[in-house]
């Protein structure tokens, strides 16, 4: 089965339906009697709600109901939660304000949820929503994280005085101070990490449904983790117990993290279905996605790097202000802390690290995990600050990296992580060759004669993926374990169904997971069905994010396959009248060692269900096994991205002329899909560096980049050809040796692009995104 097994560039099984418009997304479901919900949202960044008058809306054509925060409160439903407890330096718990799904007496950002209007048609719901009279008393607002901490800033939640949710620390402060005291050179660098709007192609959507006869609820929704959604809605929102709630996440068109979270809209649709006793459907308009999807990043950071005279790093000190938005989203607290501070060692042997992070409420959309989630921010800090040091110390940026690479494994960093394996010089070397580093000087000269400024920039990044060992994340404050489950069902005819707790929303699991089954069981991949995304089908699962589905999800499948093979061998032994220890299984055939006896896999699976040829008191009939897999460590994908670009000094426009990515993802299941993941990640990374920026108007708190007219999504002609290469060290922390590949591009690319831009301009301090106007302005100052 080498043609469809591990390592083969198998064409994606799911693409036929996606590219022919046959996918089945949440909005494609039409339930009988379905009504349409439309949300009344706050037009203000911050205001008291004095009253809500829905009489005129209720009287409008087709209106079924108008429900507001007081109705949710009357039903004693809980608020939305943040599932990761972070503690401040003084040991106190983070100060989280209430997060009702519909605002009760206060709105805290433009787009905040005030009421839902439910009507026979969407147009009627929208018309009636304009008739809901909300009397607001506007309050001063603040959208910038640093300004929110200033004295006199508007107070957003009473629980978090001064808007400080937590001031978190990690690392040894005293040891780091000592390292700085002994340093030959200290580099200080301040940098921003711009707010991004995820913009999955499919907007969020939900259909809540209720069966009066059974009291069962069903929620169809655009989720990356339907079981987690069910758990939160049951255990915390307390809509209905878990066994009375089914969550279905059918085909989902992209997530990038933004569909991990349990949002107000989906919660309200499920609840409202029970109130009005009919299905309630909501699909976000793009402008709603801009306003109310959880945004990403938004950091201000001051970093200091201590080095000896040879450029060896002695210590790193970092202070970051993380804008968390108006409410704590589901995993908001973990992103700028345990997914960020723990990666500040990069690929380098840094003996001392101390990081502090202020998590801050502002009058903006909640900020949570977005492709990379904390790790792009960490990489950006480390890689940019290291380049600043190299520039100051007049060291070649490749050379300073080589001098500091970790070379022995396992390696314990001062910030929790224990790197299991890697070969950082190998990926740097391969990338240097791919970009022809030696030829750069000549290319720069050629650019100069054409009036262009050319630069080259490096990002030797690391990420922690395959999240994660449950005990480890539990000790750090996670409210859940991060194992994964699988069930492998072999049918009598030898076809296979795999039920997985991972969720595919673009990753291609229907192909890659089937490749694993094909490899292990010798079954053609067309005889393998991957089933996911329905809490009624799949036992339980933690979903897909953090590049975890290969390392954790497939490892669970692999374990279940082990059990299937073990049982099938027992059956085969009986059938061929041989000792079980003599049965060998390879390429889909059971053989008896030293004989020509053999049975094909479907013959054994049929026998398993017929149950005639083995004693069923010894071996149960059937061939179906399950497994839960909890990883032993994070995985540590790493590599080197190099960007080469040209700036037109007259306009400030930047053109990326070369982009090289050499990644070590451990074992590759499908190189074509991996390359696609790298391309997509780099596109988003370049988007962050040069194009994308979620901007709130400082005085009003209005989102200025509320559509694609003002928010610059990367397009094909913004992007160069990508030269993609791989190196491989197999991950020792899971049975398949997989590290994960979904986020690397978004993590690595921004620093590579910005370092290249700094090289071209001779200036370190360039904010992201480096738009033509920004670059031109910097050139005006430096000329």
């Amino acid at each position, binding site marked *: 089965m080498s043609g469809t097994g591990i390592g083969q560039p198998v064409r994606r099984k799911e693409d036929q339906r996606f590219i022919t418009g046959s996918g089945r997304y949440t909005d494609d479901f039409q339930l009988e009697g379905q009504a349409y919900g439309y949300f009344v949202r706050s037009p203000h960044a911050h205001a008291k709600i004095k009253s809500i008058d829905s009489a005129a809306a209720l009287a409008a054509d087709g209106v079924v109901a108008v429900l507001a925060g007081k109705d949710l409160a009357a039903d004693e439903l809980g608020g939305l939660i943040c599932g990761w407890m972070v503690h401040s330096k003084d040991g106190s718990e983070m100060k989280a304000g209430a997060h009702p799904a519909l605002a009760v007496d206060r709105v805290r950002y433009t787009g905040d949820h005030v009421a839902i209007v439910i009507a026979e048609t969407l147009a009627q719901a929208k018309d009636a929503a304009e008739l809901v009279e909300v009397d607001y008393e506007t309050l001063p607002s603040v959208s910038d994280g640093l300004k929110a901490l200033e004295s006199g800033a508007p107070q957003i939640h009473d629980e978090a005085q001064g808007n400080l949710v937590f001031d978190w620390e990690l690392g040894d402060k005293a040891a780091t101070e000592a390292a700085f005291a002994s340093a030959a050179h200290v580099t200080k660098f301040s940098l921003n990490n711009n707010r991004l709007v995820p913009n999955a192609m499919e907007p969020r959507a939900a259909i809540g449904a209720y069966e009066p006869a059974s009291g069962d609820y069903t929620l169809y929704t655009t989720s990356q983790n339907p079981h987690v959604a069910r758990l939160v809605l049951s255990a915390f929102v307390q809509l209905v117990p878990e066994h009375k709630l089914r969550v279905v996440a059918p085909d989902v068109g992209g997530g990038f993290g933004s569909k991990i979270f349990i949002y107000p809209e989906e919660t309200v649709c499920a609840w409202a279905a029970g109130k009005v006793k009919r299905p309630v459907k909501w699909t976000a308009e793009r402008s709603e996605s801009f306003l109310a999807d959880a945004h990403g990043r938004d950091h201000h950071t001051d970093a200091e790097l201590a080095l000896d005279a040879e450029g060896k790093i002695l210590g790193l000190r970092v202070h970051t202000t993380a804008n968390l938005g108006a409410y704590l989203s589901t995993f908001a607290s973990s992103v700028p802390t345990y997914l960020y501070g723990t990666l500040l060692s990069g690929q380098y042997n840094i003996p001392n690290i101390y990081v502090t992070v202020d998590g801050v409420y502002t009058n903006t959309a909640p900020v949570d995990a977005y492709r990379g989630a904390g790790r792009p921010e960490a990489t950006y800090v480390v890689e940019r600050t290291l380049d600043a040091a190299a520039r100051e110390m007049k060291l070649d940026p490749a050379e300073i990296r080589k001098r500091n690479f970790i070379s022995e494994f396992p390696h314990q960093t001062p910030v929790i992580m224990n790197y299991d394996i890697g070969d950082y010089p190998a990926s740097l070397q391969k990338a240097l060759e791919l970009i022809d580093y030696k030829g750069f000087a000549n290319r720069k000269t050629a650019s100069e004669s054409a009036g262009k400024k050319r630069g080259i920039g490096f990002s030797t990044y690391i990420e922690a993926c395959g999240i994660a060992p449950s005990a480890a994340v539990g000790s750090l404050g996670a409210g859940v374990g991060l194992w994964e489950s699988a069930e492998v069902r072999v049918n009598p005819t030898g076809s296979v169904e795999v039920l997985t707790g991972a969720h595919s929303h673009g990753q291609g699991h229907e192909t890659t997971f089937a490749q694993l089954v094909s490899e292990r069981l010798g079954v053609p991949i067309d005889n393998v069905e991957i089933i996911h995304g329905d809490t009624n089908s799949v036992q339980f699962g933690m979903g897909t994010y953090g590049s975890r589905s290969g390392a954790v999800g497939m490892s669970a499948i692999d374990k279940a396959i082990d059990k299937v093979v073990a049982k099938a061998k027992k059956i085969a032994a009986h059938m061929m009248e041989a000792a079980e220890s003599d049965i060998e299984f390879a390429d889909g055939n059971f053989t008896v060692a030293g004989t020509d006896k053999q049975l094909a896999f479907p013959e054994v699976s049929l026998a398993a269900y017929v149950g005639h040829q083995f004693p069923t008191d010894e071996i149960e009939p059937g061939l179906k096994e399950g497994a839960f897999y909890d990883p032993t460590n994070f995985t540590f994908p790493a590599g080197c991205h190099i960007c080469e670009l040209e700036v037109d000094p007259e306009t400030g426009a930047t053109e990326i002329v070369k982009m090289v990515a050499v990644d070590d993802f451990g074992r590759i299941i499908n190189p074509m899909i991996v390359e696609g993941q790298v391309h997509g990640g780099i596109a988003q990374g370049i988007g962050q560096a040069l194009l994308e920026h979620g901007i709130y108007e400082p005085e009003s708190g209005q989102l200025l980049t509320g559509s694609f007219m003002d928010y610059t999504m990367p397009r094909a002609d913004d992007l160069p050809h990508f030269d993609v290469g791989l190196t491989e060290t197999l991950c020792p922390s899971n049975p398949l040796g997989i590290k994960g590949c979904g986020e690397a591009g978004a993590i690595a690319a921004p620093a590579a692009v910005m370092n290249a831009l700094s090289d071209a301009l001779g200036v370190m301090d360039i904010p992201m995104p480096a*738009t033509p106007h920004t670059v031109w302005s910097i050139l005006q100052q430096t000329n």
Partner: protein
Amino acid sequence: MYALKYHRAKSLDEAKQLISQSEDPKIVAGGQTLIPTLKQRLASPSDLIDIANLPDFAGISVSGDTVSVKAGTKHFEVATSADVQGKIPALAHLAGLIGDPHVRHMGTIGGSLANNDPSADYPAAVLGLNATVHTTERQIGADDFFQGMFETALEENEIITSVDFPAAEKAAYMKFPNPASRYAMVGVFVAKTSGGVRVAVTGAGACVFRVPEMEQALAANFAPDAVASIKVPADDLNSDIHGSAEYRAHLVTVMAKRAVAAAIA
């Protein structure tokens, strides 16, 4: 979108009649600006009068040194027309820069000019070439047609029927796009015709405008250096998150210089 009455006009006369009978009418042709505006509920006309399918309302013809483009002609047709490419390649080039392929296959020249978006491309060509706009009522010279932000000389009951472009001896359009919308942040159309030299700037101000100082300099010497040091004042230019007025003023000079270079290349 708010509820409205949709009419598909069969003739210009019927369209005009529908306009006069409607409380708050809006004409739609390609709809590439209007439909998104309606979908966002930013406009609420009582009646939508669709003139996209009027007979004999689209097409390109050449007569002597004049290229005549009917109002319903789509951007894609102008961009790919052998007549336009032969007589005024700069105009074909400009049309090929408008929006994206979807927009170019739906949007019309008449719609773009009647809308007069301050960042649209076509106004630069019409003003830069001193084109003549023909309507159901009269003909309007380019200098009189564009009156301000989203404002034109068109009366309520007046529909553009065609635009006559004089062929240019030398012409080029240089556009620096807004990175997000791809409208012109600054677009400069330079043309040397029998009527003289014109420099028209779109995207930078509230409305397309000419730069007389550059025109005079180019009349004396049609070369990039002639305009390289001529600056337009930033005072009245647009300023937004994508670019300050000063940046736009600077880009006017750069794009003008590059347009001249392209025109003589």
